[in-house]
């Protein structure tokens, strides 16, 4: 079975975000970028399926600027066999990304597609579900366990009330949650080897997909700052403040 994993280049999760002075967007100049953490979990899961002999090939795909090839090389170093880069400098929103991924699914015919549940930049949480709808494949979002069982996959999902397990026919689309696995770090020899693995470069036009969206970003602002509070010296003082100052007890 072939496994397709989608990865996204995003700001490193440790970086503190600044908004541009003209409020047009956040400022990403000279900011450290990385693979979206949920995509790391997706890559890890695909590689583990290969190590278990369930997957025969792992293909990583990204949509983004030239620099996003760094994240594909990371995926290759972590164990993906080859990569596809659909290069665009436009701001590709979830729908356009899902349309492009649907074309790749059509071409590659994977048995399983694994994506992160959300990207930590836009926090959209949409692409996997959109891809499932466009390809007419079943979906299991927010996965904390994935078990392939013949022509089905059993997925345990993290939902608001707890955990839910569902069974899907294969091929299927899975999006990862935090507890699915703990991603490994790439080792230096693997990073060197990854440089020689195949990486195809395409454009959205090759797939006949229009990247522009009908949603425009009008403005980006900093959120209202919380005023720093006070330190209290004791439990008694805390209770007193909560009762008499904040009036929440």
């Amino acid at each position, binding site marked *: 079975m072939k496994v397709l994993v989608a990865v996204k280049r995003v700001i490193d*999760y440790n970086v*503190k*975000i600044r908004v541009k002075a003209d409020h047009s967007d*956040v400022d990403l100049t000279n900011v450290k970028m990385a693979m979206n953490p949920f995509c790391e979990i997706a890559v890890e899961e695909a590689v583990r399926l290969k190590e278990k002999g369930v997957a025969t090939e792992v293909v990583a795909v990204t949509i983004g600027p030239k620099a996003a090839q760094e994240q594909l090389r990371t995926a290759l170093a972590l164990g993906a066999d080859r990569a596809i880069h659909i290069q665009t400098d436009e701001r590709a*929103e*979830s*729908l356009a990304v899902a349309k492009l991924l649907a074309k790749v699914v059509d071409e590659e015919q994977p048995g399983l597609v694994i994506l992160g*549940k959300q990207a*930590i930049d836009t926090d*959209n*949480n*949409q*692409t996997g*579900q*959109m*891809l*499932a*709808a466009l390809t007419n*494949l*079943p*979906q*299991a*979002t*927010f996965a904390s366990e994935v078990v392939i069982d013949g022509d089905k996959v*059993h997925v345990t999902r*993290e*939902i*608001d*009330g*707890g955990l*839910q*397990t569902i*069974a899907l*026919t294969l091929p299927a689309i899975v999006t990862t*949650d*935090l*507890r699915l696995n703990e991603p490994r770090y790439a080792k230096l020899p693997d990073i060197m080897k990854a440089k020689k693995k195949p990486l195809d470069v395409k454009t959205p036009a090759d797939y006949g997909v229009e990247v522009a*969206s*009908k*949603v*425009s*970003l*009008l403005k*980006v*602002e*900093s*959120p209202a700052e*919380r005023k*720093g*509070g*006070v*330190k*209290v010296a004791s*439990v*008694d003082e*805390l*209770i007193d403040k909560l009762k008499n100052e*904040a009036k*929440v*007890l």
Partner: protein
Amino acid sequence: MSILVLADLHEGQLAGATAHVVAAAKEMGGDIDVLVAGEGVQAAADAAAKLDGVSKVRVADNAVYAHQLAEPMGALLVALADDYTHVLASAATNGKNVLPRLAALKDVSQISDIIGVDSPDTFKRPIYAGSAIATVKSDDALKVITVRVTGFDAVGAGGSAPIEAVNTVVDNRQSSFVDEDLAQSDRPELGGAKVVISGGRGMGNGENFKLLDGIADKLGAAIGASRAAVDAGFVPNDMQVGQTGKIVAPDLYIAVGISGAIQHLAGMKDSKVIVAINKDDEAPIFQVADYGLVGDLFELLPELESKL
């Protein structure tokens, strides 16, 4: 303008979130219908009919919608969406699971997690773990939107809208429900609680979370956790508060043994009053806390419980 709100269900009953989503819909204006889909959901439909501002409740009561599996739910929404200019759901796991399917099948973008309505086509939403607030405008014919419930005060329940059956039945051979393991608790839901007390890695283990129980009992609080506490197996995933867990905005949030990473703050920094208990007086959580208490939680929690 006409808006369809997909109701949130919790074990077959109407969940509190729906009243907040209806509030967001009211800010957009127009007729508001609520769709209740599931199996054996008449009680939820009756509750939805009472929500202020609702014109009509539509009920799709059929086994194929049990557990709100994504494929049949998406197909149902696609079948109904032509009657509407907006389709809304709460940004809870069900809405997140289902709504993007509708958007994709209607070839429109989805706007996730809105916290404000500027006009019927322009919305505010947090991005980058709430480090920035984006104002976005949609020119799509159909607006598909998930709503962050903490952004909108719930509507009241003094209405009496008519209820009508939806007879659309879709086929689903792709996915099936196997089982679920739902948290059983007498405490209020995290999302709707007036007081939340959360524990982090500093709690040390799951057993020590009992130290929060007595305080939660006295305050009528829900109990939450940081990702580190969930990852370490102290408590289940449904307790995680944060960017990628639950978003809460209670009157009082008490963070115990939590450092205050941006991803955690994203889920609680709109709380009215924040208290932090941490032994590290430089922990970032103190930068957002109204009241900070520096010290060992194992001494402070029993004292707090006894003095409340």
